């Protein structure tokens, strides 16, 4: 059971930063709250008393998103369901709807924020590989001599390890910025203990663009989750395939390179075999989901 002395709902960034910097030791920020409530139960943290809970979901500056200069800036209150229901986000972030559909369920997605998912820094978060594939950066704000200062981190630098980030006392995530990948095909692979409403054992986000002819890879973005302490871009696989003729054999050969990246502490052999399949399926499904080009696989072989 989670209990607290005070529950704050600031409506401006300044108020939130002031409350957070003055909050008693042991206080917590709350975003969607879909993780903190299950955490404070038997088997995890048990009964927890927190002096001050500061809920940032009413902060006006965290609302909505903007698209400019090839980047999509998502306010910190963007919830997972937005990636399924918002037309602009679906077009510009083509791997996010597939990530979202495997994330929890429709009801939890209405509350759970992408920023909160990143702040938790779980090695098996669904959001981190998708954000890494979209060259995501996280913006943090803090008060310095009562002025609001910000700093930016790419997501793989923002997360330091399981449950650890660069966030300093008094600092709050204000937004997550991602590449606009309109025109790419996206996909998301995930395996867990069961199919639905489950935490990943491993997951893989893919963004792929075939050239106008549909015969060659123009660009690829691939990232894995659950295979190490931080999300991981598969640079070797990406560069091996960029510019190559699209064939199942080439994809399969490149996917083998991904297995070498697996560095998780448990079930390493299992995860190695899973990621090969994930990278292959991820690329193939992303190609299928690229709407404006009819992709042609090179025939003559059977993968």
């Amino acid at each position, binding site marked *: *059971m*989670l*209990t*607290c*002395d*005070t*529950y704050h*709902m600031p409506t401006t960034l300044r108020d939130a930063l002031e409350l957070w910097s003055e909050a008693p030791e042991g206080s917590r920020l*709350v975003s*969607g*709250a*879909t993780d903190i*409530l*299950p955490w404070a*139960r*038997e*088997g995890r943290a048990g*009964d927890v008393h927190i002096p001050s*809970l500061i*809920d940032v*979901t009413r902060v006006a500056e965290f609302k*909505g*998103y*903007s698209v400019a200069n090839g980047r999509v800036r998502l306010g910190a209150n*963007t919830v997972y*369901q*937005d990636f*399924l*229901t*918002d*037309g*602009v*986000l*679906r077009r510009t972030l083509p791997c996010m*709807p*597939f990530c979202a*559909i*495997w994330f*929890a*369920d*429709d*009801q*939890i997605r*209405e*509350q759970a924020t992408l920023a909160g998912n990143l702040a938790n820094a779980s090695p098996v978060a669904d959001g981190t590989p998708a954000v890494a594939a979209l060259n995501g950066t996280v913006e943090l704000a803090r008060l310095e001599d009562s002025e609001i200062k910000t700093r930016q981190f790419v997501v793989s630098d923002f997360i330091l390890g399981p449950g650890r980030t660069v966030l300093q006392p008094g600092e709050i995530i204000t937004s997550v910025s991602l590449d606009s990948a309109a025109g790419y095909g996206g996909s998301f692979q995930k395996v867990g203990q069961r*199919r*639905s*409403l489950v935490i990943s054992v491993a997951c893989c986000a893919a963004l792929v663009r075939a050239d106008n002819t549909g015969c060659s890879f123009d660009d690829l973005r691939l990232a894995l989750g659950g295979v190490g302490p931080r999300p991981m871009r598969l640079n070797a696989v990406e560069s091996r395939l960029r510019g190559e003729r699209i064939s199942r054999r080439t994809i399969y050969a490149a996917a083998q390179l991904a297995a070498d990246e697996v560095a998780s502490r448990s079930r390493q052999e299992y995860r190695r075999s899973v990621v090969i399949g994930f990278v292959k399926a991820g690329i193939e499904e992303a190609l299928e989901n690229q709407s404006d080009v009819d992709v042609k696989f090179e025939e003559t072989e059977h993968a």
Partner: protein
Amino acid sequence: MPKLKIDLEVNNRKMSKETDAHKRLLDFLRDDLNLTGTKEGCGAGECGTCSVFVDGKLVKSCLMPVAKASGSKIQTIEGLSDPGTLTPMQRAFHKTGASQCGYCIPGMVMAATSALRENPKADIEEIKERLGGNICRCTGYTKIFEAVELAKAVIAGDMPEEALNEDDVGDSYIGHNVRRLDAPSKVSGRLRYAADMKMHDMLQMQVLRSPHPHAKIISIDTSEAEAMDGVVCVITSNDVPEQTDGFGVFVHDQPIMARGKVRHVGEAVAAVAAEDLVTARKALAKIRVVYEELPGVYDPEEAMKKGAAVVHDYAPDNIVKHIPVRKGDVNAGFANADLILEDDFSTQQVEHAYLEPEAGIAYVDADDVVVVISPSQNITHHRHMLSHILGLPINKVRFIMSPVGGGFGGKEDMIYQGMLAVVAMKTHRPVQLNFTREESIIASAKRHPSRVHYKMGLKWNGEITAIQFGMISDGGAYGMSSEGVMRKAAILSCGPYEVHNLSVDTTAVYTNNTPSGAFRTFGGMQAQFATESMMDMAAEALEMDPFEIRRINMMKIGSRTHTQHKLTAASLDRCLDAAEKESRWENGPPNVRGSKRSDLGGDDTRAPCTLGARFKNGKSTDKERVA
């Protein structure tokens, strides 16, 4: 407790309320507004019994701090329709028999309502996906999906509203769709389960449970907990009359709270009754128990060995019950066999996971009758046991069975009602205990994990000549229903096949694991897993069709069962015919079928869950709602 002021609108009523700052929306709706149609099945966002609309979006109210709901419009199951009426969705649930125990149903109706509000044209795959956050343990979902499709058709005008009315049954109910009498109370959320009931001046109870599987209790110091503001009493086994403290379905080996030692992790050691839940939980942390850990035994075969730790003094060999069945001459049967197969089969522990966690209320009425209200599956037996434990005549103990939000055998054991009764007698105040999901899992009985050693003799023509069947079951720390489960396992052991020579032994053994008890099939499942696997393996060895070997051995009219009951009716032949036809079975031994089987897949088979159905279903939700 720190307070919070919130303004909101619930079911079209504006309100301004002061409530505890830490509360979840779920607690606020249930405790402050008495809107108990919204249930708590897990408290962790897994089950969906607490689904409500907040500003038109369905959320899980157990995951929402109440402060987040301030300024919002909330709609609960009670607000879907006016009193005395039902929405088309609720009527469809009634029509198709979608509600059984009913505990998931308010949340399920909310999720179904949300699915069609989000996309009135959702196809069945999208409906399944949108209901993915809600769990039902009774129906297998089929009737729920039928209800949603029916409601969809009626709402869209594709079917007349009369389609929601009860089918005409003519002059016989048999063969007709008959509506359940209790469904309206369930689809509307009006039915009150034990955790939904409230009494004036009622205390809340919480239970301290053992962290050890086997340990002597050296001392329990409750003084600090008892001194807390708001704590009314703390009880241990010392508060129970000593001579008679024991319950169980067959052997009364379980004290209502651990006495002298604990025998499994999660066993009740002490209980607190306080003015409110938060105080009761805080008081638990102040109880000091000194344990001396004892060697434990965790494997039933190890438990039967000489020198193993003894779980109960009355059973030095750790045997709960051994059931032997003998028929014919098993040695002669094996001597007469052309082929003898031998193998081992094991099954695991299984949790019932009914959506309603255990809950109950006890009070003492003005005539000194101790009354216990709980979803007990065995109230008469519980009443008799409790009268002995409390040292009261039977007419001073009363059990009232509240609606059972799923039991499946798991609510046959009196694992908490005794504690409630003791507190009610000590305080003369009503007292309630609502288990958390975690507590339900740790403290309730499970399906027996079993190991079967199987030996089967067969003629080349497929006829079984003899079976030797030995089952060892892990009974866990207490006897509960183990004896009955072993009897049923033995009676059903060799399946619906006529076996002239058999030797069957089923044994349940005490260990320091979570107790095993009743669970659907009551031992039959473990036995049939072994027998039916063995039949398929025999078919493979004899290169026979699996249906054929079953027809050769099946019980017919005139057959004698394993326990020598002469059958005057038998229907396995018809079952096999129907199963063979409906599965489009291709004749042949089970091992020569391979990947080209045409009897797999097809329209009437269920594909595994793949998410993303809505992506294929057009752009109906393609709106820019954020910017």
